[in-house]
């Protein structure tokens, strides 16, 4: 009876995915924000670092988000900045997920001394505060671009993923169908790729969503401290400038509030989607009634 019910859930997963309110709401917000990042730059006549002649002007029809002290159009800055922040998030998120999955998988699948060493390493990097580590790394890099920034973020934020993936792998590795694959003479490579990996896919997607959000957050924080891309614009850089030039104290809220709001909404949508997925895949979290 119990087993039958478990199997039933499997069939229901797809239906539940489509019905989940959290996933629907989160995906809608995410879609809008992504659309802004993609289309936004084509909807403005100003470059992000182009002097417009209007200095410190509040939002108007000409400048939907106003201009800052240097005469830059903030709408342009935000849409371009959003684009690069998302790009860093994607690259950093992918890298962090990849490293975490790789380490977690090797650790869980092969076990033994490899496992103990990798987990020691993971636990160590889990405790070292990531942002502090990022700061001392970034500070020594002379020319920082989007790529470098996402690489160092990816290299420092994988540990929790490794730990989670390891647990996931362990439970899959000792499933009978994996044993049977071994007894059917299947090569290790195809056992991993065809039997185990597909079962981890939904989990890895959830991990990636969180890593994507995490990378964006680390990137804006680095930018904000002044260790962002040495050239170009990002949401973090806009905020750094805003604080550096006392935007808030000078009453220019349009300089400092919208970029952060956008980040917060983007991350909210990611977290909400993730929780929705979790509810679908982990029925104990579902609310009854």
């Amino acid at each position: 009876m119990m087993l039958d019910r478990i199997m039933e859930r499997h069939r229901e997963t797809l239906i539940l995915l489509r019905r989940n309110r959290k996933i629907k709401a989160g995906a809608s917000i995410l879609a809008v924000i992504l659309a802004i990042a993609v289309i936004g730059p084509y909807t403005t006549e100003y470059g992000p670092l182009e002097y417009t002649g209007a200095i410190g002007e509040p939002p108007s029809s000409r400048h939907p988000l106003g201009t800052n002290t240097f005469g830059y159009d903030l709408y342009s800055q935000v849409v371009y900045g959003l684009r690069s922040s998302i790009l860093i998030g994607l690259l950093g998120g992918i890298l962090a997920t990849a490293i975490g999955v790789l380490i977690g998988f090797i650790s869980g699948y092969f076990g033994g001394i490899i496992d103990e060493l990798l987990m020691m390493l993971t636990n160590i990097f889990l405790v070292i505060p990531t942002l502090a580590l990022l700061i001392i790394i970034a500070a020594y890099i002379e020319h920082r671009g989007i790529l470098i920034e996402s690489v160092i973020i990816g290299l420092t934020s994988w540990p929790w993923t490794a730990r989670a993936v390891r647990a996931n792998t362990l439970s899959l590795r000792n499933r009978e169908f994996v044993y049977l694959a071994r007894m059917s003479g299947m090569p290790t490579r195809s056992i991993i790729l065809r039997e185990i990996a597909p079962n981890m896919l939904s989990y890895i997607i959830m991990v990636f969503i969180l890593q994507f959000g995490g990378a964006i957050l680390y990137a804006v924080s680095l930018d904000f401290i002044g260790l962002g891309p040495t050239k170009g614009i990002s949401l973090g850089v806009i905020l750094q400038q805003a604080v550096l030039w006392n935007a808030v104290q000078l009453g220019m809220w349009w300089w400092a509030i919208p970029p952060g709001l956008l980040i917060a909404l983007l991350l909210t949508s990611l977290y909400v989607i993730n929780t929705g997925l979790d509810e679908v895949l982990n029925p104990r979290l579902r609310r009854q009634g």
Partner: protein
Amino acid sequence: MGLIRYIGKKAVIYLATFFVAVTLNWAIPRFMPGNPIGILLSRFATLPESAEVMYSYFTQAFGLDKPLYEQYINFWRALLNGDLGVSIYLYPQKVRDIVLEALPYDIVLIVPAVIVSWIVGNWLGALASTNRRLDNILMPIFYFLTASPYFWMAIVLAWVFTVTIPIFPPSGAYSPGISPSLSLSFIVDFLKHWILPFLSLLLVMLGGWAIGMRNMIIYELESNYSRYMEALGAPNRLILRYAFRNAMLPQITGLALQIGLAVAGAITTEIVFSYPGLGYLMLQAIQNQDYFLMQGAFLVIVIMVLISNFVIDIVYAIVDPRVRYTYTGETG
């Protein structure tokens, strides 16, 4: 017995972490691509005075003429003597002194923010888990709070409470002209400066705790012991109390992970309010390319995080009976 074993195991991990952090701190300037040492050296040209003293210290600390392993040993030796080098930007002050002066500001900010957010967040989360209507209202707010970058929350608070309704000072730890003392006027002044950075940290962390607690309780309420209690007619309140207790335990472990994030939050928040903690210090160091100061701050942050993690682990081991028994080696 189990307790000691558990704590011992944790201590080993933290010592190893400290070792790795120090090693990274040593290695990054030496092995980063793009000749970071060169950058460092070039800084001496801009030193206002006594470049020579600085240079000799530098060669001693970095011992660039010596083999790597010797450089490494010397680095440790200096560290264990409490020598973190000399600041370039605040020359000739010692990095250790500068950092130790900034550290209390972080502690007064982070520790209360973490504790209060933990308590209030868990309480709100538990409330949301039992009340459907409240849940629907509160959850989106919690998600938004936890998704906000700390420094942006700081900016919002600054805009509301220092500009729109100017009731709090916009920057610093206390007003210029007042010197630190235990007088009431100083304390009030200090708290006025402290409240906004504190609130920034509090609000963002609160969201995360509340979400975690709410989900854990719902998870626990679906557990077999909850079903059993319900089958025996236990009132909701009682079942909830049991669920709350079990849901709280992972939240304590979460506390350990949160410390690292809180530090990140504090670093950026302090920048918004020019609050003179390690974060603000780091910003100064970065802007002035004062690498010794930066690295010293990093080490102190790591040590602080390690100590708090260790404290949390001990608390956890005392609160959760499972730790004691799984580490005694008696069962499974």
